[in-house]
């Protein structure tokens, strides 16, 4: 850190502690906390709150432990990490209320696809200057997802590039090679289906994220700027390749139709009826967990997503970063912690994340064992590097999911076409942008 930034940080800290003192003394007259602060202003630590939705489950390095390490090393910037127990959308509602009340934490976890929505709703702080300092620590694609029209609002945490998971033992038994193109994939699927096995599941409930990511992998850019207006292209030529790919699989009945989060999906996996699935990188530990204790253990493997477009590429299915919220009194310190926390690779990997920070990830032992000793995270990191770099989201992206999922359900039942899903995405995108009062062409 240069001396200039150190100085700014110091004076900022002083300003913050002053305002904290002011707040204290006005709120609670003659509060005991005002005494030490006035005697030595710089000694008052800045306190940063961080609201996250990490699982913090059994066998993981707990967020509290990672943060405790930071706190021990940084007596002047003390961080409190709190887990939010609700869904992502509920957290946004809570943060919106917090910001109105002036009690918002400094840092919060936010999905990449939600970042533009949070920004438009006025919940985010512009931290471009600070973010630039840490830019080189993160993969470029992920960093870009934490910017909104060139303004950085935080730092990336983990990525969700699409990959292909498959049961290697079953593939070998059926004499199948891992498909690397859409054509190979449909051929292999047909062959497996003859034996009553399926190498892909069409997942209506994940239509919004999974299919948009597949469109990205096929080279599509759904949203772009055109004369300071949004140009929506959710059903263009590249996207149609994805539609055709799934339509073929569905028409030939060589993919099963199961919702990703329904019990049937898990049952199909444990019963070894479903022996392959296109999924996000963060699904690696989840799939292992779903099938723990079944004969699948040690049989699975991870490969790159088959090429869906003109070049081998992957697409972003989920993943999230840590944003700085509006009204944060110490954005510089918050970003300093943000950078430190999101480069704690081992701890974050233990939480099941494929980190956005540069650096080697060590595949956790249980995950490695499930995938037959494969260095899974190295494969996932490769997918991260292969992400379509140009797939920004619109601020109303969260509002288009239901229409896509409904269309996907019809396509899965044969009552509609896969292409209809993208038509629905197109229409819902344009309509929701108009509803939100944002400029959109067409």
């Amino acid at each position: 850190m240069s001396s200039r930034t150190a100085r700014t940080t110091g004076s900022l800290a002083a300003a913050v502690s002053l305002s904290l003192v002011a707040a204290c003394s006005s709120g609670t007259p003659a509060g005991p906390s005002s005494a030490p602060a006035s005697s030595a202003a710089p000694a008052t630590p800045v306190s940063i709150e961080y609201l996250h939705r990490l699982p913090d489950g059994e066998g993981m390095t707990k967020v509290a432990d990672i943060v405790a390490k930071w706190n021990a090393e940084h007596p002047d910037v003390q961080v409190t990490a709190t887990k939010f127990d609700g869904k992502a959308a509920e957290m946004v509602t809570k943060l919106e209320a917090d910001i109105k009340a002036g009690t918002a934490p400094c840092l919060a976890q936010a999905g990449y696809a939600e970042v533009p929505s949070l920004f438009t709703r006025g919940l985010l702080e512009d931290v471009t200057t600070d973010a630039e300092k840490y830019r080189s620590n993160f993969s470029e694609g992920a960093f870009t997802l934490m910017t909104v029209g060139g303004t950085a609002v935080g730092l990336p945490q983990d990525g969700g590039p699409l990959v292909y998971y498959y049961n290697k033992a079953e593939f070998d038994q059926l004499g199948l090679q891992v498909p690397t193109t859409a054509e190979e994939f449909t051929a292999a699927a047909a062959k497996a289906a003859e034996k009553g096995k399926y190498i892909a599941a069409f997942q209506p409930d994940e239509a919004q994220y999974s299919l948009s990511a597949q469109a990205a992998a096929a080279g599509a850019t759904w949203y772009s700027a055109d004369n300071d207006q949004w140009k929506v292209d959710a059903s263009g030529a590249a996207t149609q390749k994805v539609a055709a790919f799934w339509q073929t699989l569905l028409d030939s009945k060589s993919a099963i139709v199961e919702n990703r989060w329904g019990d049937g999906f898990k049952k199909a996996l444990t019963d070894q009826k479903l022996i392959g699935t296109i999924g996000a990188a963060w699904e690696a530990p989840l799939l292992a967990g779903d099938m723990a204790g079944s004969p699948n253990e040690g049989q699975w493997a991870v490969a790159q997503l088959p090429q869906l477009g003109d070049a081998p590429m992957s697409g972003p299915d989920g993943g999230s970063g840590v944003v700085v919220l509006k009204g944060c009194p110490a954005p510089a310190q918050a970003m300093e912690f943000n950078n430190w926390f999101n480069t704690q690779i081992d701890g974050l990997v233990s939480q099941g994340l494929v980190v956005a920070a540069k650096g080697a990830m060590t595949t956790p032992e249980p995950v490695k064992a499930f995938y037959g000793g494969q260095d899974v995270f190295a494969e996932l990191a490769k997918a991260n590097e292969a992400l379509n770099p140009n797939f920004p989201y619109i601020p109303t992206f969260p509002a288009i999911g239901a229409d896509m999922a409904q269309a996907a359900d019809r396509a899965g039942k044969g009552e509609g076409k896969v292409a209809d899903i993208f038509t629905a995405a197109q229409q819902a995108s344009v309509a929701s942008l108009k509803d939100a009062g944002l400029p959109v062409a067409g």
Partner: protein
Amino acid sequence: MSNRADVPPSLQPSRAARVLTWLVLALALAYFLGPVYWLVVSSTKSNADLFSTSGLLPAANNAAANYSALMSWTQGNFWRWVANSILYSTIAGALGTLLSVSAGYGLAKFRIPGKGAMQVALLAGLLLPISLLTVPLYLVFHGVGLVNTPWAVIIPSCVSPFGVFLGRIYVESSVPDEIIEAARLDGASEARTFFTVVLRLLAPAMVTIFLFIFVATWNNFLLPLMMITSPELKPVTLGLYGMMSYFNPQYGAVLQGALLGVLPLVALFLGLQRYWRAGLASGSVK
């Protein structure tokens, strides 16, 4: 029921009627407890067994592993959260019952100007979905400095328009005017009459209202989700919700947490049992 023995033998129901009734009640019991049975069995299973074995039969016992997963997922806070829930629900239930019965008594037994308007307001309070009022409520509680304190959960939970309606109905059907008049003639103050005479007569009704508010507070997660951030203040339902909102929960652990969380409710229910009877007895004593 306590006066069952007084019933003349000629009115004792026939054996056939008894058996038939018992059969109907047992079938209903099976309907209500069947899913609970699944819950108990599943709380001992691993995730894999949950999806590969029959839901009705136990598989390899994974209860201990699920318990340790539950402790780990809740950061060792599980029992603390249960204690929090007991505390919040008990205070909300007790306060709420008293508030409801008092208001119900006021509405039932006194001529108050604007009574009709009050009842319309109460009903209107029920008409708007609570979940959409949570955000404005949060701002109100922030204004009075109670956000992230137990009171932010307790106070909204103990205000039950439904409890007031119930209180009013029960007062009307089981507190005769003569008893109040008699107490007044004895020189008792209004407060004394209420606390010593009226509340005693209302015991079964109060137990019911208490139970409803207690359970509603226990199971509410949206309110604490918005109001509480400190892990040490969370109620147990919020913690379970947190485990479920992640993609890949260990179901056995969540189910076990739910069962362990229901135990205090069962204990409470059984503990309240005698008050139901007491109320009945005092009703027939007069």
